[in-house]
């Protein structure tokens, strides 16, 4: 390990981002080089920690931070396989995406702002996963949300982008509110934010009967609310597809590889550190695990169905991201070591292939200047590197062996069978079939379909090396990460988990079934065009279904109704209660006083006789009072 890696891996980008605008003052190239270099530097520190945590070793370092009347709050880092894995994903994949940005964003305005927030984000994300307490976690949690908001709204003059930024911030804030309530309750009960101290205090007070199980479940559900918002799960999933208004590298880094995984990370962290299986048997927290598993599985399925009908090159992959995040959560909710390992493994693989798919989509958009896949097609020849790397990413996502996605998805299915929750198993299986279909549809429409008439492909050429090299690096990762780690059994070994399982026959059959049925449908509908989608849409039922899916089950429309209604109601309140009620009442009182005073005005006659008479009367009354007080006091 390089010295102070657990701290420097996130402090370097956090402190370094401040100087990004200064370096841009020296020149565009200098600024870009500095930003990329600083993230690579941070990734060296992150990667150097891998040997130290290999085999599940972990340790904590902390320093005093905030004085409160309850004592000092410590700031600290927790170094263990999970945090190091996430830190490496954030910094290492982040570094390649930064490099890609140099090409992709070359002609944009406002680059200092872009690079500032990218570097700031990478620092924030790494800090989030390295934190050893909930307060620090929450701070970084919001930092990455802020960067996400600023980067989604990068093209701030575009109304859709400005709107999408707000939508993302507010939607995730709703989840964060729940999470903060949970964190504050924990702090109030135990006086600490630290994960392991909370664990000790929790298990102690459970034994003593100070904390009831329903309360603990409630706190965990509140925390999980934060994960639902950040990882775009039902019912807070609506922000992620709109977030695609941001530049593509942002989608790849924040909305595919890292930030949206924060919710998965939080859930995995809770299970690993705060409510470990040994001290809190899954049977005890059965209800909470059920919530996690079902929200994940249901989201996975519904997001996949919406991915089938979208026509925007990035939105399809965005729905895919929501769906895959759902799979990871479902796997965590199975409450088994196998499920936990499968989920973590899928985090790694998904980060590689999904970042790859986004960068490939960016490369395509860069070349053709549109985002509608109906206007693309036949790009395979013009863009061979983009095509072949996309294919690797797509096959990895679809779960075709020997690409990475196959192995982790296999583990997830295995875990769901082991846990024996049939609905979750079925949802995962159907999701996987749908995944196969929508991502090959994507490949087909973009690269292989007969080219559309709108443009000639003569002008279209492959992207520059600064963009294709990151594609190739990520493609190599997406192609081989799964098989290498699986064959050498090094992933469980790295985590320090001893899995004694052998892939069951049912799992094998399920995987084969997924691939075969997916391939059959894709051939029938797209490649063979035996029943093309238009035929399906022409029937009454197909038309209805398509309409519902394209309108995203009307969930977005429903939310807009609520928000608009609230604002409308606020307007009514302002008119009737604030201006018409309270403020008017004030003026009524003022007018009333004025009227009352006017009555007394008649006394001010200006006649000196009356005035002097009044004066004498007043003095007489005062003397009377004085005498009464004097003698009353004496007696």
């Amino acid at each position: 390990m390089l010295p102070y890696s657990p701290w420097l891996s996130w402090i370097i980008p956090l402190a370094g981002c401040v100087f990004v605008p200064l370096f841009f003052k020296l020149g565009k190239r200098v600024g870009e080089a500095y930003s990329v270099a600083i993230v690579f530097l941070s990734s060296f520190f992150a990667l150097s920690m891998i040997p130290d945590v290999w085999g599940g070793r972990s340790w904590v370092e902390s320093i005093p931070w905030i004085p409160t009347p309850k004592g000092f709050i410590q700031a600290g880092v927790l170094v263990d396989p999970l945090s190091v894995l996430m830190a490496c994903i954030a910094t290492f994949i982040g570094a390649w995406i930064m490099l890609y940005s140099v090409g992709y964003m070359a002609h944009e305005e406002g680059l200092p702002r872009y690079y500032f927030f990218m570097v700031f984000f990478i620092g924030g994300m790494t800090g989030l996963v390295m934190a050893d307490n909930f307060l620090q976690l929450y701070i970084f949690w919001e930092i990455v949300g802020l960067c996400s908001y600023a980067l989604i709204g990068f093209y701030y003059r575009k109304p859709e982008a400005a709107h999408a930024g707000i939508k993302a911030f507010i939607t995730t804030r709703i989840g964060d509110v729940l999470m903060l309530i949970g964190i504050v309750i924990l702090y109030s009960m135990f006086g600490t934010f630290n994960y392991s101290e909370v664990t000790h205090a929790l298990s102690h007070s459970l034994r003593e009967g100070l904390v009831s199980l329903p309360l603990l479940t409630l706190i965990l559900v509140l925390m999980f609310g934060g994960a639902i918002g950040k990882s775009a799960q039902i019912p807070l999933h609506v922000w992620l597809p709109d977030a695609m208004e941001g530049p593509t590298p942002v989608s790849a880094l924040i909305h595919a590889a890292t930030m949206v995984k924060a919710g998965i990370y939080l859930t995995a962290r809770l299970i690993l550190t705060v409510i470990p299986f040994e001290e809190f048997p899954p049977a005890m927290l059965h209800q909470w695990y059920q919530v996690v598993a079902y929200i994940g599985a249901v989201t996975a399925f519904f997001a996949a169905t919406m991915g089938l009908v979208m026509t925007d090159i990035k939105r399809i992959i965005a729905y895919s991201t929501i769906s895959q995040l759902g799979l990871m959560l479902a796997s965590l909710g199975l409450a088994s070591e196998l499920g936990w390992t499968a989920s973590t493994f899928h985090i790694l693989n998904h980060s590689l292939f999904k970042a790859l798919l986004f960068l490939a989509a960016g490369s395509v958009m860069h070349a053709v200047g549109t985002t509608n896949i109906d206007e693309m097609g036949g790009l395979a020849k013009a863009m061979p590197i983009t095509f072949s790397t996309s294919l690797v990413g797509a096959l990895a996502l679809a779960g075709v062996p020997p690409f990475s996605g196959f192995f982790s998805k296999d583990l997830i299915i295995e875990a769901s069978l082991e846990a024996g929750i049939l609905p979750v198993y079925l949802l995962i299986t159907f999701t996987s079939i749908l995944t196969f279909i929508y991502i090959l549809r994507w490949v087909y429409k973009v690269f292989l379909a007969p080219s559309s008439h709108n443009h000639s492909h003569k002008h279209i050429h492959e992207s520059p090396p600064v963009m294709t090299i990151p594609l190739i690096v990520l493609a190599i990762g997406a192609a081989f990460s799964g098989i290498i780690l699986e064959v050498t059994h090094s992933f469980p070994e790295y985590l320090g988990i001893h899995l004694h399982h052998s892939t069951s026959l049912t799992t094998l059959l399920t995987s084969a079934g997924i691939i075969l049925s997916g391939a059959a449908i894709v051939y029938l509908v797209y490649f063979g065009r035996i029943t093309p989608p238009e035929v399906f849409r022409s029937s009454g039922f197909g038309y209805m279904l398509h309409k519902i899916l394209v309108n995203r089950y009307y969930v977005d429309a429903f939310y807009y109704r609520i928000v608009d209604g609230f604002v409308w109601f606020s307007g009514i309140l302002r008119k009737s209660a604030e201006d018409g009620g309270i403020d008017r009442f004030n003026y009524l009182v003022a007018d009333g006083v004025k009227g009352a005073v006017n009555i007394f005005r008649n006394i001010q006659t200006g006649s000196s006789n009356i005035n002097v008479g009044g004066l004498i009367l007043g003095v007489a009354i005062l003397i009377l009072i004085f005498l009464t007080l004097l003698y009353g006091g004496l007696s």
Partner: protein
Amino acid sequence: MEVVNTTLLSIALFIQLILAPLIYLVTSSSKKLGDTLSIIVSATPLIIVAYFFNTVYNGLIVYEEHPWIPVFGLKLGFQLDSASYPFALLISLMGFLATIYSTKYMEHEHGYPAYMALLLMFNTGMLGVVLATNLFLLYIFWELMLIPSYFLIAYWGTGRPRIIGFKYFVFTHAGALAMLFGIIWLYVLYGTLEISQLSILLTDRAENFYISILIFIGAAVKMAVFPFHTWLPDAHAEAPTPISVLLSGVMIKTGAYLIIRILLGLFSWVMPIMNIPIIILALISMVWGGVMALVQTDVKRVLAYSSISQVGYILFGLVTLTPIGIAGGVFHVLNHGFAKGLLFMCSGVLIYVLNERDLSKLGGLASRMPVTATAMLLGALSIAGTPPLGGFASEWMIFSGGIDAGLTIYTAIAIANTAITAGYYLRMIRAVFFLQPKHDLSKVHDAPLTMTAPMSILIFLVVILGFLNYPVTSIITHAVTHIIKM
């Protein structure tokens, strides 16, 4: 507690009041010389307050006393301890920054010399409230703060300044009278107005309950707690911007000081009876202010309603009556003061550069005004409780206090309300800085350095107080454990 005697406090306090006429004369003949003098004069209290930082940090009290009206046993006493220090720092710093900001923002206004003189007197009034050692003196400064601000609103304000100024005066004066009544009652019962003696003499009497209600009314009107709030949106939105900075950023916090010093410091055993109704008022204020801010179309009115909402948070923290909640409330006084001051300065830039404050007529300014855009985003997010900014650092303490006090449902509402806060601020930022510009922006540029320099200092504070707040929070923690004796 040990006491450090000094004569510097009266200099810090009276230099602005005494030199105000001189500044009026000098500024009338030479603006440049007058401005320099004003800035130096307004910097003096800041330097003196900063000078005592270490003393207060180490738990000592800075004290100064002169004989005054011996017949009533009144002394002219000033002190700076850990309870008044955060307020004194806020007042002197914001007073200084508002003075600098005014030299540019107000330069073309009529009666500029008189404006400057009144501004300095206003600063004196606010500082006096938190330094006074007896309630009589406190009341005098309370009024000294009201009178100059009335003229500042009524003569340099926008819209219908006379009526709005009058409304402001009547409201806060009515509150002040309630407070005065309470103070006199205290004197009748205990024969002294020295806070330090009262804390010893105070006995368990039924009258204390009514006195604390009277004093709470005085504080609540100043803090614009629902339903005494309607003067605030008018006054804060229509006052000249540097005065809005002081009204919203600083003046309304003197109400919080009154609660800390008198209600929590002296009547701590009366508070548990009153705290649930006050908590409910605080909650209504924060939700009502937020909902009203959501439907405003004027930048400064959004900010003004936001102040009502945020004062609700401060009040909520204070009346949780838990150590961490009170500490959070006091800390939020600072964080809200800096952030709201910053936001009003941003709105001032819009008025100065574009002469426009209507949300529907602004837009697309981000690239033309990078400093203002950054400032507004940071200030807004800080108030919305977004880490790592200052507002979050105090808000989680307030929430933590709420849960500690067993007010889980109330606290959940307060936390949920931060989503509304984020909503109206992001809506405002989108309307001002995002979207397509509605003006010809080719000649639009950011504000001059005289205006952006104070803003930069506040940006720094808004950011740094979020995570490196050790010195400030130590002083606040000391105040909570030693002065309020929680």
